[in-house]
């Protein structure tokens, strides 16, 4: 246990303070050797010194080992080559020994040290790889930007032990927005940090990264071009890092890493994993951005499709009555025909019908425009349910109104609705029923109140709705199979009704009524009664 503890301390010293460790090792060895100076030949002491140099090389690396070799060379000469305690050498054979010792010590120190450094590097690389693998696995899973920012901050803290770090992302206008930061004082980033980050973003360069030297091409590939802090507009030399999150065609943002808590500049080996993480994050951000853009493009395509359907549907709905009116009026205006009064009145009644149709198409269009803007937010208040039902009823053109049979219970409660919208939804149901029912057939409009909800329904004597169409008929521009090109309607009425009912937290559906016909039912939850008055 104690041995292991000592070894640990030795390793720590060797790693952090290599030259000190080298000097201390050689001096301690010398102190240990001196008492036995006369028991062995001087050449044997040389071998022992070589052992010490090898130890230093193995623990502390090449440069401390070279220092140890030099020191051992001097001390061996000073203490063990006669005359003792001087650097003078009498025997010319000793000159040769000295020379050989130096060469062997340097060679051994270099080789052993390199081996040790390679091993340490391999270990570090392995750790980096593991960390990067983990990080990229998280990036591939569908995380949000803020999740990733949090993860990234954790990694940065672990890799570098930085005092603070922040992820600064470019928004749509290209301004940097702080997405996530971790800092000792949890305060805001200093303005100087933001200044440099902005410079880095504007120039697509890193700031404060150590220059890369003696690295293989694979390392250099992802390494950002970096400049000094002062070149980036800082007033003094600093020790923090600004790593650009660069993809091929865009700078996604800046990864800011504050100075390390132990002080001192970042080395290449510290920054390399940061650069790798930054590059992966940039790729992730680019993917997110492209994804969002593609969703937007899909929405635009859908809007385009709707628009073209709208234009074809609406132009038909607007042009047909206009054509019919033009023809009828033109006919009546002809001088060559004597129009008797009844005949003329009949012609004019059809003009009236066309005009009603035109008016309802225009209303449907206005509804659609409102539906797609925020203007269609419901303004709910307490209304007498009877008033809502009658408001819808009164909007049906007078001629058609007589076909509607209203059957309401004696009294109806107050309900919390947007009266304009609700009346529009009911009006659309009524208008549909009047169109799809056979001419002069009755349309039934009813309402009831049950536990926690009110219901209004509209019943017609039309062909009914096939079960497979009962959902689709509520979609925009969907026209039921039983409707032909000549059946008036924009295909918007039910879509508007469904939207209104949805706003009110209710349900709308269609069911069969025997022997033939459809019943459209809306059910909207009621919320208590009007407050104190």
């Amino acid at each position, binding site marked *: 246990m104690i041995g292991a503890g000592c070894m640990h301390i030795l390793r720590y010293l060797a790693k952090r303070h290599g030259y000190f460790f080298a000097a201390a090792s050689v001096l301690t060895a010398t102190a240990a050797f001196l008492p036995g100076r006369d028991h062995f030949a001087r050449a044997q002491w040389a071998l022992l010194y070589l052992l010490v140099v090898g130890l230093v090389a193995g623990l502390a690396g090449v440069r401390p080992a070279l220092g140890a070799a030099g020191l051992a060379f001097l001390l061996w000469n000073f203490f063990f080559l006669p005359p003792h305690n001087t650097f003078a050498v009498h025997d010319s054979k000793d000159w040769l020994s000295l020379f050989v010792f130096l060469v062997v010590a340097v060679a051994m120190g270099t080789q052993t040290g390199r081996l040790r450094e390679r091993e340490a590097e391999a270990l570090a690389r392995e750790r980096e790889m593991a960390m990067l693998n983990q990080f990229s696995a998280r990036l591939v899973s569908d995380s949000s930007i803020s999740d990733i920012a949090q993860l990234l901050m954790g990694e940065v803290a672990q890799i570098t032990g930085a005092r603070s770090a922040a992820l600064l992302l470019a928004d749509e206008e290209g301004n940097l927005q702080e997405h996530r930061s971790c800092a000792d004082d949890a305060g805001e980033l200093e303005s100087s940090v933001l200044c440099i980050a902005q410079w880095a973003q504007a120039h697509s360069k890193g700031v404060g990264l150590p220059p890369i030297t003696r690295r293989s091409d694979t390392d250099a590939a992802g390494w950002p071009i970096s400049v000094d802090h002062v070149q980036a507009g800082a007033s003094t030399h600093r020790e923090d890092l600004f790593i650009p999150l660069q993809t091929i065609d865009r700078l996604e943002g800046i990864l800011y890493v504050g100075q390390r808590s132990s002080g001192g500049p970042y080395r290449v080996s510290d920054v390399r994993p940061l650069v790798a993480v930054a590059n992966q994050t940039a790729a992730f951000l680019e993917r997110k951005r492209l994804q969002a853009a593609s969703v937007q493009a899909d929405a635009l395509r859908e809007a385009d499709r709707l628009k073209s359907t709208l234009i074809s549907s609406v132009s038909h709905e607007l042009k047909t009555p206009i054509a019919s009116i033009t023809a009828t009026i033109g006919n009546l205006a002809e001088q060559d025909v004597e129009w008797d009064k009844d005949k003329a009145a009949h012609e004019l009644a059809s003009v009236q019908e066309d005009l009603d149709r035109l008016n309802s198409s225009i209303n449907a269009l206005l509804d659609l425009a409102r539906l797609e803007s925020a203007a269609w937010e419901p303004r709910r*208040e*307490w209304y*007498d349910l009877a008033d809502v039902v009658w408001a819808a009823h009164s909007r049906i053109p*007078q001629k058609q109104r007589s076909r509607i049979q209203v059957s309401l219970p004696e009294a*109806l409660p*107050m309900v919390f609705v947007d*009266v304009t919208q609700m009346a529009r939804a009911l009006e659309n149901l009524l208008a549909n029923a009047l169109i799809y029912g056979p001419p002069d057939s009755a349309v039934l409009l009813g309402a009831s109140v049950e536990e926690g909800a009110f219901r209004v329904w509209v019943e017609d004597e039309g062909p009914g709705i096939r079960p497979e169409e009962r959902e689709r008929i509520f979609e925009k521009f969907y026209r039921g199979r039983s409707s032909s090109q000549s059946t008036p309607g924009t295909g918007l009425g039910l879509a508007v009704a469904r939207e209104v009912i949805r706003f009110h937290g209710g349900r709308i559906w269609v069911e069969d009524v025997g022997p033939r016909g459809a019943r459209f039912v809306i059910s909207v939850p009621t919320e208590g009664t009007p407050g104190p*008055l």
Partner: protein
Amino acid sequence: MSAPEKRPHVLVVDDEEQIRRALRSILTARGYDVALAASGAEAIECSLNRLPDLMILDVAMPEMTGIEVCRELRNWFEGPILMLSVISGDTDIVAALDTGADDYLTKPFSTSELLARIRALLRRTASRVTPPPTIHAGDLEIDIARRTVKRAGQEIELTRMEFDILSYLAQNADRVLTSRMILEKVWGPEYAEDAQTLRVHVSHLRKKIEPHPSSPRHILTETGVGFRFASSEPSD
């Protein structure tokens, strides 16, 4: 309609030429004496030259809106004003009625409806005398002075608010009263915005006086605007 001895003079104010043309043709055919104005300023000019018996005023006009014209006119013009609007329950319509317009129609309107409204408005001004102390409507009998209401001879108990609403509406039969007007009259100016409270009271009132409260005959709702008391059974 046979031409009356003195043909009523109607001033039509609308910036749309088609509407002016249509209204002139409808009204002159029914024996009205029609003048046209294309703007608010022109309307005021015309009515100063010759006082109309009734004015038809479009709400949405450039420069001077119908509401502004109405407010201006009400300084000296006492005749009935019928407003025209494109959107039903339009806030502009409510504002116009609040500044003193008597009734409104939503475009597109039917000729028969327009003529019915005009006749009702002219009838009311012709008989502009102190309203009778007792108002009869269907089987309803409202005694304003004694503050009692009878339905088919049976006395009905109303709260003070309910009676005030009913008597105010009945004294202005066939005329649209905005929620604000009723609230100011019955509750006081500080309650002018509380249309919701008014609707709740009207709902209670209907349960007491209407034969079928869910299909009212007497107190009709003008959605988004206010209420109207129907003196006779509705025609449709």
